[in-house]
């Protein structure tokens, strides 16, 4: 959607301050009023008062440990993902939707992967994958919204937090948290998980588009010489957000635009998100947390085909991503976790699907896992809580482990109480 008018201005020649002022104040700013909203403008001009932020980035460490959070929305059926084929109860309770023992990709005598996850076998065999069984929380909530809220904020089930766990990590005065691009969600809008009280992550699907938008003449005109707005009040907050967005957009675009991935990814929206993350990590972006999601897991009806299709997309995307990171020597610095807001009931329903349940498995990937393979005992299908799995581990123990051992903060500061850490990293 490049506006024809913007072609009047050179795209690769930096303009002088006066030129920019003149242009933005007149002709060019009119682009904004046209029907494409923010349009490509071209100049790489950065207002002087935004410079310190860019300068800060240069003297930063080069070794970065990254966390990638993958959210499966809708409540993925963990029992048909990691199949307890060694347990008869599984076959009794799921007469028409159980995965046959001969189709399961066996990991040990009890559990194996859904056949649609074949792409992950190699990853598993390399020791890059850990499966944590039965992760949940006390008094589980079966509403998608509420349970996702709980997972994203890291709250108790009767507690309402308006900040996310990664957001509170940004709020903590960790060494790298001062950059507004410390946490990036590859999406159009920002999840609650990424929102802190004073700091928030950035949502972007396409770094070039965000860069174009923040370089729109109107947007830039709004930021010109605007020191007077940088107060602590709400208007100051709006301007601060604009400045950080603009600054981050430039940093992200300029750092990552030269990088060309040599790996091939499957063609899916999900794989595209991961490809973007890989591009950011491999080009050395000083971001610590990435967030992506895949939705459609609410399989009440005819689950086999739908979930199979999604698991295939998930696994093929993940395998390509992890191998790409490996080839760029980034796998050891990267930790990937996958969660869903809840698992599903042990017994299938009458529509060849499953209804909302409780505890679920989580996956951890990385080149430096301490405990590889299956982390803890398979779900106990004979000791249920009114038809639902009982959780073995609180999801905040997993978060706590990552916060303590990977992001180097005290998990009690982020999670509001101390959680015992686990030994997967």
């Amino acid at each position, binding site marked *: 959607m490049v506006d024809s008018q913007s072609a009047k201005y050179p795209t690769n020649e930096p303009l002088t301050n006066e030129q920019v002022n003149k242009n933005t*104040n007149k002709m060019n*700013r009119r682009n*904004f*009023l046209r*029907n494409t*909203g*923010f349009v490509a403008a071209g100049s790489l001009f950065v207002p002087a008062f935004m410079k310190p932020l860019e300068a800060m980035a240069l003297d930063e460490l080069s070794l970065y440990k990254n966390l990638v959070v993958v959210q499966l*929305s*809708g*409540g993925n059926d963990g029992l048909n993902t990691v199949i307890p084929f060694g347990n008869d109860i599984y076959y009794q309770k799921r007469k028409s939707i159980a995965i046959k023992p001969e189709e399961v990709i066996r990991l040990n005598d009890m559990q194996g992967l859904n056949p649609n996850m074949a792409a992950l076998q190699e990853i598993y065999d390399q020791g890059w994958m850990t499966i944590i069984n039965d992760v949940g929380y006390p008094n589980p909530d079966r*509403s*998608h*919204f*509420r349970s*996702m*809220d709980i997972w994203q904020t890291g709250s108790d089930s009767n507690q*309402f937090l*308006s900040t996310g766990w990664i957001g509170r990590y940004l709020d903590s005065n960790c060494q790298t948290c001062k950059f*507004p691009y410390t946490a990036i969600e590859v999406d*159009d*809008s*920002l999840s*609650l998980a*990424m*929102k802190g009280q004073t700091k*928030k992550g*950035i*949502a972007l699907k396409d770094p070039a*588009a965000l860069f174009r*938008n923040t370089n729109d003449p*109107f947007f830039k*005109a*709004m930021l*010109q010489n*605007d020191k007077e*707005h940088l107060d602590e*009040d*709400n*208007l100051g*907050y*709006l301007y601060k957000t604009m400045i950080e*967005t603009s600054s*981050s957009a430039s940093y992200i675009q300029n750092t990552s635009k030269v990088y060309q991935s040599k790996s091939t990814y499957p*063609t*899916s*929206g*999900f794989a*595209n998100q991961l490809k973007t993350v890989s591009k950011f990590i491999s080009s050395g972006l000083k971001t610590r947390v990435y967030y992506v999601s*895949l*939705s*459609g897991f*609410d399989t*009440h*009806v005819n689950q086999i*085909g*739908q979930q199979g*299709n999604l698991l295939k997309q998930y696994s093929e995307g993940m395998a390509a991503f992890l191998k790409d990171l490996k080839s760029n020597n980034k796998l050891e610095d990267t930790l990937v976790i996958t969660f869903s*807001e809840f698992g599903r009931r042990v017994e299938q329903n*009458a*529509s060849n699907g499953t209804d909302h349940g409780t505890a679920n498995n989580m996956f951890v990937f990385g080149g430096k896992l301490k405990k590889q393979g299956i982390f803890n005992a398979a779900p106990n299908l004979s000791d249920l809580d009114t038809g639902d799995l009982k959780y073995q581990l609180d999801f905040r123990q997993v978060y706590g482990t990552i916060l303590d051992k990977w992001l180097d903060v005290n998990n009690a500061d982020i999670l509001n109480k101390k959680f015992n850490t686990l030994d997967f990293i």
Partner: protein
Amino acid sequence: MMSTKDNFLKVKHLYNRAGFGVSYTDLQKLSKKNLDKVVDNLIKDSQKDDPINLINDFESKRQLLVQAGLYAKKDLTDDEKKMRQQIIREQNEVSRDLNIAFITKMINTDAPLREKMTLFWHGHFACRSNNPFFAQQLNNIQRANALGSFKTLLVEVSKSPAMLQYLNNQQNKKGKPNENFARELMELFTLGRGNYTEQDIKESARSFTGWMYDKDGSFIFRQNLHDTGTKTFFGKIGNFEGENIIDIILEKPETAQFIARKVYQFFVNDTPNETHVKELATHFYNSKYDIAAMMKKMFTSDWFYSQENVGTKIKSPAEFLVGLSREFYVTYNKPQVLIQLQSSLGQYLFNPPNVAGWPGGQSWIDSSSLMLRMRIPSLVLNDGEIDFSGKADPEDEAVIALSRTATTNANANMKPKSYVNANANWPKFLNTLPKGLTPLALTEFLLQPKLNNKITTMVSDNKGLRSTAVEITSMPEYQLC
């Protein structure tokens, strides 16, 4: 004696906070009146209660009955499965229509204070229901009592099927109490955290046992499921029933404080001034929880118009969308886009994040939501192309799972171009402006914060009022009210 110019700014502030803005013509007329009179008029204009009647009671009951029948059966025939899916589909569609009906009502209302208060109660008594009839009913309760007695409002909300279902009071039975409703009643609806004990929650939960709705979707007190034993609640001992509990809660001045503080944060400032809150709370309590009396007290207080309270609040997405649409007489040819916009901006009406409602204030703003807010005026007023899609609502996941065939990709990038497809009525808008109004004067009218040099310079070279309007509404300053 107050100058007209001074009054102009005060009335403008009043209508921005108590309603969704004001046209230039009305503002000019109102500015000539005494401010107390303007407040009286504002309240008088909102006397009429005009409920949303989108969803037919009869059809909804039929669906409820069919659903209840289907849920009771273990094995469904293919036809029954189809019927159930059909009902879910219809309900989702009607839920979207209800959302649009509410936001459209706010855009077109001539009772702005009532609708603004309804929006306030919509966030205070936050609730999700996948039954659109229940959701409509709760919305109408909040509208009917928006400016009435808080007690009546509280009792009616507590008896509404939507809330009984959402907070699990259907499962609250003698011998097996479910505390969800009792807890939120005190924590979020009345007293606030720290003003009750866990024991108070347990005892009040027992008192609400048997508060249910029947298969027709009407409130019913099931005596046989009610715990008739003696309860001790805030030191009082008795054989309490739900309404007794509500009465005891209202006797506590902490309830008036809690509501007054929340009203203050919604209408005046994110950061409460405790002296002003106390003033409001005392007035509210002494008026026996008369909401209109509290609102009048607030709108006639000097501090309501003081500098730190003008042009300093971040508009909620609903206030932003309604204000913009109202200002420019926008009609949406595909009103579903209003849902997409609400969702992308983080306030999908009827779908609050949880029973605590939307946190508001600075939490509305992050890099992506701010960029989007700054683009929306040009999208809506100039029919621009949308290049964002937002996330699916978690409750829509089942629909996504159903509609996704084996060949389509999740999050597929191949989408047809989409437009807001709205029409601003420019002639009508321009007609409300006095002849010869300068772009600068229009800017002063459209923005609530004081103008600074930069904005003054930016608009001074602008020739047309229409392009000035689009530019002004795209500024960060327009995000404040």
